[in-house]
């Protein structure tokens, strides 16, 4: 068996003789608790997990290769499809990377609007995590409640970008257009409502003895292992690492917002649940600050060779029409160089590595997505525990297969 499924890291080979008694169990790729097409080959001794061999690649579409054949602005819609639960963060990270290459400064209103969108997107991601995680454990009701709130976020996105999930709203140089007139009122109404909804989820789950017992002490990950295995985001903070890119290496004006970064030192599934719940409340506070202090002005940079002109201008001004034609037909060139831009997305540290050779198409785009690294820590969290805990742990690390396989 080992020839075909390989040897994992941080694992001693089973003792001679003992191996014959182990059973190999296949979980996935079509399994409701794997959140996509993840295949786990489990080596179990009775009901105790001995090894986990994740098999990935079922969703591999070669997005990095596709990017090399597209103009810079044509890559934006591809990024939505990677982590389809957190679309704005993907757009934001790619655009920040290209703007760094271009040396482009975005107006304050554009930056603040991006913060609102990134936080709404994070709430979207966390709401899905909470619903599906609770459903995996057996608490079916919460799923219906979180999807009710998520629907409102999707409606706001639809009003904003015309698309519910694949928004592509954040563009290189700003955002695609001014938000609709009722946008800020809808966001305000939503965040007025959300804190009590979070209390509602918490009432359903935090005191629930079954949920508590399924998560407490399960899937322990130490601080050292979290760092060594590349775990980032909420699972890393639940293991006691006090680090958040929004606070520590701020981008898009995050340094102007005050928020609390929740930390736990327990390192188990329960800690990851608590950290994410507090993070949702903090996101609401960030959005409130952004709405209260939203600066006046343009949402996109004054860069006619990079940012598409306003529709009205394009129809009335010759210059704008020429710029529009040039951007759409041959793109814009980007000075040669390489940049890495990391942001804190819903699942953890997302990074785009963009290499330019001075042409209108990226020479190389590499995406660093948190789930890819976090999946490596699965064995460290599940080893020596019961088979049923694997489902709880996979739910608690919140993976999306689109971003693992890319």
């Amino acid at each position, binding site marked *: 068996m080992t020839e075909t499924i*390989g*040897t*994992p*890291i*941080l694992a001693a080979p089973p003792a001679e003789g003992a191996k014959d008694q182990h059973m190999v169990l296949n979980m996935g790729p079509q399994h409701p608790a794997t959140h996509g097409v993840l295949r786990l080959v489990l080596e179990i001794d009775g009901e105790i997990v001995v090894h986990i061999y994740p098999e*990935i*690649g079922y969703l*591999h579409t*070669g997005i*990095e*290769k*596709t990017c*090399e*054949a597209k103009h810079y602005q044509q890559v934006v819609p591809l990024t939505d499809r990677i982590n389809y639960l957190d679309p704005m963060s993907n757009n934001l990270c790619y655009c920040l990377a290209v703007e*760094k*290459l271009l*040396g482009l400064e975005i107006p304050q209103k554009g930056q603040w609007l991006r913060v609102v969108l990134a936080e709404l997107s994070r709430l979207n991601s966390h709401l899905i995590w909470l619903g599906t995680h609770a459903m995996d454990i057996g608490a079916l009701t919460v799923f219906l409640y979180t999807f009710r709130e998520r629907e409102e976020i999707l409606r706001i996105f639809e009003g904003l970008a015309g698309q519910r999930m694949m928004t592509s709203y954040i563009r290189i140089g700003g955002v695609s257009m001014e938000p609709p007139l009722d946008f800020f009122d809808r966001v305000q109404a939503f965040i007025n409502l959300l804190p009590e909804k979070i209390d509602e989820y918490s009432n359903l789950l935090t005191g629930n003895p079954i949920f508590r017992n399924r998560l407490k002490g399960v899937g322990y990950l130490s601080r050292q292992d979290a*760092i*060594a*295995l*590349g775990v*980032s985001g909420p699972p890393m903070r639940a293991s006691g*690492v006090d*680090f958040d890119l929004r606070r*520590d*290496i701020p981008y898009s004006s995050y340094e102007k917002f005050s928020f609390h970064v929740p930390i736990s030192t327990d390192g188990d599934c329960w800690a990851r649940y608590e950290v994410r719940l507090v993070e949702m409340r903090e996101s609401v506070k960030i959005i409130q600050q952004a709405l209260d202090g939203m600066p006046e002005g343009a949402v996109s940079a004054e860069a006619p060779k990079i940012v598409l002109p306003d529709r009205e201008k394009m129809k009335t001004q010759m210059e704008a029409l020429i710029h529009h034609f040039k951007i759409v037909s041959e793109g814009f060139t980007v000075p040669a*160089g*390489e*940049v*890495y831009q*990391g942001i804190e997305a819903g699942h953890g*540290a997302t*990074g785009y*590595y963009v*290499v330019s050779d001075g042409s209108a198409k990226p*020479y*190389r785009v*590499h995406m*660093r997505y948190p789930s*890819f*690294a976090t*999946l*490596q820590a699965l064995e460290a969290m599940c080893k020596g525990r019961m088979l049923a805990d694997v489902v709880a742990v996979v739910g608690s690390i919140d993976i999306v297969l689109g971003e693992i*396989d*890319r």
Partner: protein
Amino acid sequence: MNNDKTLSGRAEVLEGFGEHPAVKAILACDPEALIDARWDRGELTLTIATREICAAARAVQTAGYDFLEDLTAVDWFPSSPRFQVSYHILSHSLKEYIRLRVMLEGESPSVESMTAVWPSANYYEREVFDLFGIHFEGHPNERRIMLPDDWEGHPLRKDYPVEGYR
């Protein structure tokens, strides 16, 4: 250091960044290891001699750069050396990234595996092996990760076609 400024070449960067913890750690470990350096758009890139990459990574790890955030490659076909392997390393305490990189020749490219320093390099190196065909010496499980095991070729190489039938 000013983000708008560009420093290129080992001598210029050493002048501006002589006191930088990562540069100091690498120089203390082996002054020959650092062969080129660049400060561009607020990012520090240190080119390391291929055989010294793990020693340099250990040195920066001790200097506080504790988290390997990303590892990937770039194919500069048809230039020589052809492949570039980039390591993006984050420091949780110093709150900054650095980029280490090695340049590899096109004929059977090979570099020491980083898994001994950061176990998280495991999947990243499998991905680079799968999509670029770069071999990592000492990797515990060097198999394809994205593509099927019987796939021919390495898609992210520049001489691999983007469209059409294979």
